[in-house]
């Protein structure tokens, strides 16, 4: 009888042991990181603490880990060149675990317990919307590095990624002029694609384009045969692709197998950068387009140095992309503001940042717009090459002013955030 009991317990013990091993494994690596942090600083009073809040596990880890790496790299560079206000920057890394309540919780921990001067992080709009009330309540600063759907401005957030008029709107105008008027909108079923498509539909109406179809698929959807059949029937010139994550892989593979090439229909993506192309497979995407503010192939001296440093630090097979770059220069913009303010106090830093902070980022000159705390950015359209890099087809040539509420566009009146 006892023996049987033992056998019943055994699997649970094995499971606990394995889990224990995994947890201690993670713990070990964490303490190592802390030790490295300690080595560079004698006591915590000589340091400026900043938080890095990204999904290091879960479905979003795919994208966010590399942004965390770039943010860390910027912090290390600033430390190596003498630090900030005579102090070293001490990064505290938290894992949002692709879970929005966790993001809010960790942001609260960073602000309340660690008293960080700024937080660099978030990727999905859902995580940003979860962190937003926290940074507003505790008067923190969030530097948000990813392109998003716009229609938002918080005095506690600085947006270093593009808003729609710096990505989607110029892309639609360019497509109408260069690739044709008939648009098919395809996106994942959540807030970013739905809001983006609402903007695109208004713009198409104003600029003489036609909407021939609009489809949304659940996140993680993998069978696109029916949708591709619908696309064939609708005969668009352009597919505007706001799919996120893994669905892109399935979509591009199956589109190619259905015999549709970039010569028949151009796919314009807004959420697939160099990092994602590695997973989609360059051969599946070659010839199609994407619109961003930065490509790894962007030709500036700052970018050459940036790509070299990033590869030297994290491996030659790694690539840089737009959110990685925005995560990187965000730290520098914040550091410039701190220098100007002579303090890390949030209110003083915000005022300094809004007084016209500039930085020569890898994508070119970036500066903060005082009106809405977004960044002036150059817009670029690139064609995917066989090696997974982009060839720039078009660019605005200079940074353009952020306009997250699309005030500069008559056709955008009446658009609002959310569904």
């Amino acid at each position, binding site marked *: 009888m006892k023996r049987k009991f033992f056998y019943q317990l055994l699997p649970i013990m094995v499971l606990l042991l394995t889990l224990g091993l995994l947890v201690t494994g993670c713990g070990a690596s964490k303490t190592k990181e802390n030790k490295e942090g300690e080595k560079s600083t004698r006591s915590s009073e000589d340091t400026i603490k900043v938080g890095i809040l990204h999904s290091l596990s879960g479905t979003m880890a795919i994208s966010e880990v590399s942004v965390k790496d770039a943010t860390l790299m910027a912090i290390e560079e600033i430390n190596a060149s003498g630090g900030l206000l005579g102090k070293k920057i001490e990064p505290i890394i938290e894992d949002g675990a692709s879970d929005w309540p966790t993001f809010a919780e960790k942001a609260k921990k960073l602000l309340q317990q660690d008293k960080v001067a700024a937080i660099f992080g978030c990727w999905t709009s859902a995580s940003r919307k979860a962190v937003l009330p926290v940074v507003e309540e505790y008067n923190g600063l969030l530097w948000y590095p990813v392109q998003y759907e716009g229609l938002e401005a918080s005095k506690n957030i600085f947006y270093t990624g593009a808003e729609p008029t710096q990505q989607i709107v110029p892309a639609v105008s360019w497509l109408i002029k260069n690739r044709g008027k008939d648009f098919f909108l395809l996106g994942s079923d959540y807030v970013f694609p739905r809001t983006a498509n609402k903007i695109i539909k208004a713009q198409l109406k104003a600029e003489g384009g036609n909407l021939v179809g609009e489809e949304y698929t659940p996140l993680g959807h993998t069978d696109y045969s029916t949708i591709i059949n619908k696309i064939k029937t609708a005969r668009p010139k352009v597919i505007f692709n706001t799919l996120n994550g893994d669905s892109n*892989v399935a979509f591009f593979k199956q589109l190619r197998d259905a015999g549709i090439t970039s010569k028949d229909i151009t796919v314009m993506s807004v959420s697939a950068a160099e990092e994602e192309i590695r997973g989609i497979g360059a051969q599946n995407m070659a010839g199609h387009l994407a619109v961003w503010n930065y490509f790894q192939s962007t030709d500036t001296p700052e970018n050459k140095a940036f790509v070299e440093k990033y590869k030297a630090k994290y491996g030659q097979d790694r690539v840089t992309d737009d959110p990685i770059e925005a995560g990187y220069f965000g730290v520098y913009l914040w550091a410039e503001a701190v220098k100007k303010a002579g303090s890390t106090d949030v209110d003083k830093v915000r005022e300094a940042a809004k007084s016209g902070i500039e930085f020569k980022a890898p994508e070119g000159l970036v500066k903060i717009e005082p009106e809405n705390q977004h960044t002036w950015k150059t817009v670029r359209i690139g064609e995917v090459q066989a090696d997974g890099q982009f060839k720039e087809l078009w660019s605005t040539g200079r940074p353009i002013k952020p306009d997250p509420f699309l005030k500069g566009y008559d056709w955008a009146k009446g658009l609002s955030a959310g569904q």
Partner: protein
Amino acid sequence: MDTLLLQIFNGISVSSILLLIALGLSITFGLMNVINMAHGELIMIGAYVAYVTQLVFSRYLPKELFGLYFIVAIPLAFAVTGLLGLLLENVLIRFLYGRPLDSLLATWGVSMILQQLARNIFGAPNVDVVSPQWLNGGLQVTAGLQLPYKRLFIIGLVLICVAGIYLFFYRSGYGRKIRAVMQNRNMASCLGVPTRKVDSYTFALGSGLAGIAGCTLTLLGSIGPTLGTYYIVDAFMVVVLGGVGKIIGTVAGALAIGILNTALEYSTTASIGKVLVFAIVIAFLQLRPAGLFSIRTRALD
């Protein structure tokens, strides 16, 4: 007309993929009554086997042979996941027979461990599997109707798998032993069937089929640590709808869901189509809790 024909083909194609991912589960869940939440991760491992085989072929073997990697990867995926299934059965599952809820919890833990392992070994980002050249493109039937070779290949592969399983279960001595154990364990044991061994091998067979499914899915979609989670719900839905314990049920379940899904998706949208399929399956199970094909056996009482 072309659109309709293509849509019918799509329906069959989706069914074949559903069937492929559910075949292994119909053995472990349907026959053995083990709720294996790690089935999706076994699929994921099969996909990574294809990835690694491709790497080996492109790095160490002459270029002309590259097209063959996929043919090698399929049995390799079967072997790797089959062995893993054997291991899993011996260290964990065998203590949990007859306790479906416990096996659900334990295998869920296993699935998380396997996902994290994949993330540690291959990294969090998706990896790219280049499909062999002979599977690219499609069969041009008429001007507007092109059937992708990959989908045709998958349909063929599924037919072979189903035929193989049928022959194994209903025409071979070992298959007869398996059925005997599943239907009446004590009686089979009395008659000298080594039930422990049969359990092990049956579970390994189900796991191996998951590996084949994973290997094949690399043709269509993404290969990442979370690959399995996308398919696990569909796989369970197929087996439950078909009626646990019958292979013919799984085939019917996959066909029903696949064709229903593409038809509804075409007439509505992808999200609504999926919800409708769920709703119809649930409603159907209210009327016939045992699924399309029910089996009378004492083991399931």
